């Protein structure tokens, strides 16, 4: 790889060294021999090309592609260099990348210099200020941690303004003093104004260098934000000082009037405040535009880039502080843009910004290296160079200590000595200074060459020496590092609570402090800005919910990936369960389900698959294959669209696999159940409404599945089962939940059950029981539709969805119960059918007769033995009917009604569903036996509270 990289470098250098496009190695020698300034010759040769041999099959069109080609090759080179540096882990941890890049630049510069005898490339100020710098600043501003930034804004502003002014003046005056003292050679023709100008441009801490070096050091966030914020915000000071001095130098110091100084101050205010305002205006504009990009998601990232860049250019246009403008545009717009644009656009913006910034940084450092290898710049004066180095270092340190002393009187968290050392040492100079010094007019500033050389040395020294040593220094001083840890939600909440508390206290004390203003701003943001700049849907939707959605989907997919049926109870109780439950916007959940096709909407017909005789092996193979060797079988239109991003193959596959697996599981359950309930089902089918009813209840049982699993002491159910060999146990667990809820109605927050119900959470299902019988889809009954749920199929109206889901769940629950003796089932079913309406009391299981919930296990046992199937079914029916009464909207809130239901259950059964009334109690009885075996009547342990949600 290394030789390859070197070859690439050489080739690039060769290509770069040859402006006229004979890039072949042989041409290099020829070029060296030729007069390099042969524009005319080039024309001639080009002409020859065309006239020479008539039509040429291949033509050499270098001049045509030259500029973009060179740019592309440079980018390639820079990127390849990065790859090379990161080959050795050990090396990169010691040597910062910026150092390596400068060294590489030096080497390249040397190659180019040897090849063409003249340095063809240097860091052009126009290129730097118009393209390279904005990409870095844009990235920095957009991803600036706003809270941290504004929390430390006072310190940042202080260092940026006062610190920079101090550095600039002191360096300038002291250099002048050194000149007067004769330390600086007489060849350096400069007077006070020149030195002040030089001091101004050399004193500003450089954002590019700071970013490059500090990013690898990982110091704590506060320190980083102070140094980095300073480097960004000092731009206004630098720009103004630079311009003021240039004009002073031009008119000559003797012509400067007092008014001009005031103009300078006014200019500073205008440049800084104006720049900030421009940035904020563009931030608002950006937020507003992204509000309407819903239909053209694909260009969302472009808006972000364009407007942020325009903020920079506009500020530059009015000669305001462009860096300030861009920074504030990024900070201001980030919140709204991130909320408005789609997830993919967000990723795109992030990646593109990082890519651009990274490549720009690389190019800057390489070009800095290259620029240094230029004979025309070697105007060395040891006195000037050493004086500058000493002065900037000393004054930086003095300035930092002095300002920190002042700041610490106001800061709650004082800046320690260690921090001050790092801040002083981290005052890196970089490309901004270099570009500014190159911009100087050699006519007016006689000592420009000396200044350029000195700047290069200063930049190299700070970036390379200080950059190299700051890491050991930080380690040695034991500066607190960044933890790189996201605050937990708990921390965030408490922080927020503290914010409110502090604001309140400030208000009481009548102090218009930081918290007061931040609170004011938040109010303003909430009441006006967010309404103006945020999409309506976003405005109501919380970030949290979005995050939760993502987590859930990921969970689901990963579960499926792990083979489909490795669902453990632990998984079922994902922390997200609670949050899902807590999400009040039920409709969103429904939509979400629908859109993302959790594959739960089974056609009712599927349920009727008649399990034929089949080879078990066949079945197993099929299902394993279906689950694991899955290839999307759906034909997707693979049309090309400029405006819409097609789903990724992987995503599609995930989705289908997911759907399919869920589907399979459903079917498994269904089929098992089917065996036992064939007749019941057919009965029901005839009474169409009943089918629906049946569906209604299931989600709750689903809930209970989820809730129960993590909580219940596993031993007890097992024991119970063993003792009673009660087939129904598992099945009834779900039902019991309903009853239990009644006991502790308080504990459940309102929104919870609703959400739970609507969002049945596929991953919540337990794996198919080992004994479960699987259908082979191709062997299913004639009428059954293909087992794969298509995407379209998932787009059913919510009610359907729910029904289907419920149905599947119900079957799911019944799976685990071994087939009951047919006698037990049939008579009851027929009875049920016959009766239709009220059921004779004789039908109520003995357990329920006892009435009091506390009498338990024995009854349970009994009842379950007698009527395993029935009980459940009737129960379902009853619940359903109640739900029906509740009506559509309340359906989602069904669990809410359970408390009201329960009282009825114990004493006299509610009138409408008579058959169920008696049985209803059973579930709770079961639960008891399952969950808290010996003392069933007692309320649950408090620890269960949360899960019960």
């Amino acid at each position, binding site marked *: 790889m290394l030789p390859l990289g070197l070859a690439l470098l050489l080739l690039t250098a060769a290509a770069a060294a040859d402006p006229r496009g004979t890039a072949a190695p042989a041409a290099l020698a020829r070029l060296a021999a030729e007069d390099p300034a042969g524009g005319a010759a080039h024309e001639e040769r080009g002409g020859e090309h065309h006239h020479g041999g008539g039509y040429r099959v291949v033509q050499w069109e270098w001049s045509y592609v030259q500029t973009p080609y060179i740019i592309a090759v440079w980018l390639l080179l820079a990127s390849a260099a990065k790859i090379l540096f990161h080959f050795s882990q050990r090396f990169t941890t010691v040597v910062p990348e910026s150092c390596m890049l400068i060294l590489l630049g030096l080497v390249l510069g040397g190659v180019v210099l040897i090849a063409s005898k003249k340095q063809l490339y240097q860091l052009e100020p126009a290129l730097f200020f118009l393209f390279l710098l904005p990409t870095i600043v844009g990235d920095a501003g957009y991803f600036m941690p706003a809270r941290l930034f504004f929390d430390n804004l006072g310190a940042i502003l202080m260092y940026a303004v006062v610190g920079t002014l101090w550095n600039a003046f002191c360096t300038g005056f002291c250099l002048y003093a050194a000149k007067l003292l004769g330390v600086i050679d007489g060849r350096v023709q400069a007077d006070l104004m020149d030195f002040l100008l030089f001091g101004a441009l050399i004193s500003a801490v450089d954002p590019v260098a700071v970013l490059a070096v500090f990013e690898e050091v990982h110091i704590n966030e506060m320190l980083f934000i102070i140094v980095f914020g300073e480097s960004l915000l000092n731009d206004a000071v630098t720009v103004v000082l630079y311009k003021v001095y240039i004009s002073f130098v031009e008119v000559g110091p003797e012509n400067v009037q007092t008014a001009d100084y005031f103009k300078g101050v006014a200019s500073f205010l205008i440049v800084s405040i104006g720049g900030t305002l421009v940035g904020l205006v563009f931030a608002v504009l950006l937020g507003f535009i992204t509000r309407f990009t819903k239909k053209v998601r694909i260009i969302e990232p472009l808006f972000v880039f364009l407007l942020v860049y325009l903020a920079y250019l506009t500020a530059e246009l009015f000669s305001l502080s462009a860096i300030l403008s861009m920074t504030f545009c990024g900070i201001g717009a980030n919140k709204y843009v991130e909320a408005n644009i789609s997830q993919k656009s967000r990723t795109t913006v992030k990646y593109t910004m990082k890519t651009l910034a990274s490549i720009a940084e690389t190019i800057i450092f390489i070009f800095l290296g290259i620029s240094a290898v230029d004979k025309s710049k070697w105007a060395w004066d040891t006195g000037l160079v050493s004086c500058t180095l000493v002065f900037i270092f000393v004054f930086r340190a003095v300035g930092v200590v002095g300002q920190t002393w002042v700041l610490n009187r106001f800061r709650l968290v004082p800046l320690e000595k260690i921090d001050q050392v790092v801040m002083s040492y981290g005052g890196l100079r970089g490309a901004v200074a270099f570009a500014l010094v190159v911009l100087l007019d050699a006519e007016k500033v006689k000592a420009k060459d000396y200044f350029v050389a000195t700047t290069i040395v200063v930049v190299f020294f700070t970036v390379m020496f200080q950059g190299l040593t700051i890491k050991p220094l930080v380690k040695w001083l034991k500066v607190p590092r960044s933890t790189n840890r996201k605050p937990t939600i708990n921390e965030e909440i408490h922080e927020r*609570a503290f914010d409110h508390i*502090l*604001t309140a206290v400030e208000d*009481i004390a009548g102090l218009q402090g930081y918290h007061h203003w931040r609170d004011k701003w938040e109010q303003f943001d909430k009441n006006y800005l967010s309404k103006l700049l945020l999409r309506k849907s976003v405005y109501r939707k919380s970030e949290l919910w979005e995050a939760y959605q993502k987590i859930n989907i990921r969970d689901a997919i990963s579960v499926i990936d792990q083979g489909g049926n490795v669902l453990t109870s632990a998984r079922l109780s994902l922390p997200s369960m609670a*949050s899902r439950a807590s999400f009040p916007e039920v409709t969103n959940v429904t939509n979400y389900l629908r859109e993302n096709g959790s594959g739960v909407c089974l056609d009712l017909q599927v349920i009727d698959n008649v399990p034929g005789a089949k080879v078990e092996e066949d079945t197993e193979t099929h299902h394993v294959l279906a689950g694991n060797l899955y290839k999307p079988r759906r034909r997707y239109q693979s049309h090309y669209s400029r405006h819409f991003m097609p789903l990724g193959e992987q995503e599609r596959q995930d989705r289908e696999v997911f759907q399919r697996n869920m589907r399979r599981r459903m079917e498994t359950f269904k089929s098992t159940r089917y065996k036992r309930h064939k007749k019941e089902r057919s009965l029901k089918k005839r009474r169409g409404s009943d089918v629906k009813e049946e569906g209604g209840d299931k989600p709750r049982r689903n809930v209970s599945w989820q809730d129960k699993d993590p909580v219940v002491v596993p031993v007890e159910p097992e024991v119970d089962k063993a003792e009673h060999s009660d087939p129904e146990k598992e099945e009834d667990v779900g039902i019991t939940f309903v009853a239990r809820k009644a006991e502790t109605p308080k504990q459940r927050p309102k929104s919870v059950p609703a959400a739970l119900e609507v969002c049945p959470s596929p991953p919540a299902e337990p794996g198919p029981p080992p004994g479960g019988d699987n259908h082979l889809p191709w062997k299913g009954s004639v009428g059954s539709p293909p087992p794969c749920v298509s995407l379209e199929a998932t787009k059913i109206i919510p009610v359907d969805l729910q029904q289907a889901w419920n149905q599947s769940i119900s079957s799911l629950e019944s799976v685990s119960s071994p087939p009951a003796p047919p006698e037990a089932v049939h008579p009851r079913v027929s009875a049920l059918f016959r009766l239709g309406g009220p059921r004779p009391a004789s039908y109520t299981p003995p357990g329920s007769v006892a009435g009091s919930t506390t009498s338990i296990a024995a009854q349970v046992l009994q009842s379950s033995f007698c009527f395993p199937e029935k009980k459940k079914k009737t129960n379902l029916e009853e619940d359903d009917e109640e739900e029906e009464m509740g009506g559509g909207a309340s359906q989602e809130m069904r669990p809410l009604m359970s408390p009201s239901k329960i009282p009825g259950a114990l004493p006299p059964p509610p009138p409408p569903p008579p058959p169920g009334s008696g049985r209803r109690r059973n579930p709770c009885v079961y639960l008891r036996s399952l969950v808290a075996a010996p003392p069933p009547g007692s309320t649950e342990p408090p620890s269960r509270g949360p899960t019960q949600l």
Partner: protein
Amino acid sequence: MGSRASTLLREEEIEEIKKETGFSHSQITRLYSRFTSLDKGENGTLSREDFQRIPELAINPLGDRIINAFFPDGEDQVNFRGFMRTLAHFRPVEDNEKNKNLSNTEPLNSRTNKLHFAFQLYDLDRDDKISRDELLQVLEKVDVEQKMSIRFLH
């Protein structure tokens, strides 16, 4: 206004408050003027209604909780001393040596006292325990989004 307030406040009183809370003379006079401006009844004490009249506090989700903190023992009036005592909790923590010199008792702005104060904000029924419900009640007020995240924690 400031001058009027300071005239109303006797010097020895200021000294005592200074000793107790650690506020400086100017801070005390400034806060006293604030106190009198809040005191609509002009009886030298503040009631809950006086606090609730502060517009910013009305929209603060934790406003009630803070107001409660000014009435430690279930009283419904707080005088200037009590007012200052509560506010003193929010003074920055000072160096330990300095505090020891000032007084033997622990200053109100010590870490422990601050924590105790924060604890009391959560301890609604003042039984020196934060129950689950109390915690939830406080946190749920933080705001809507946070509320959901609280559920998220369960």
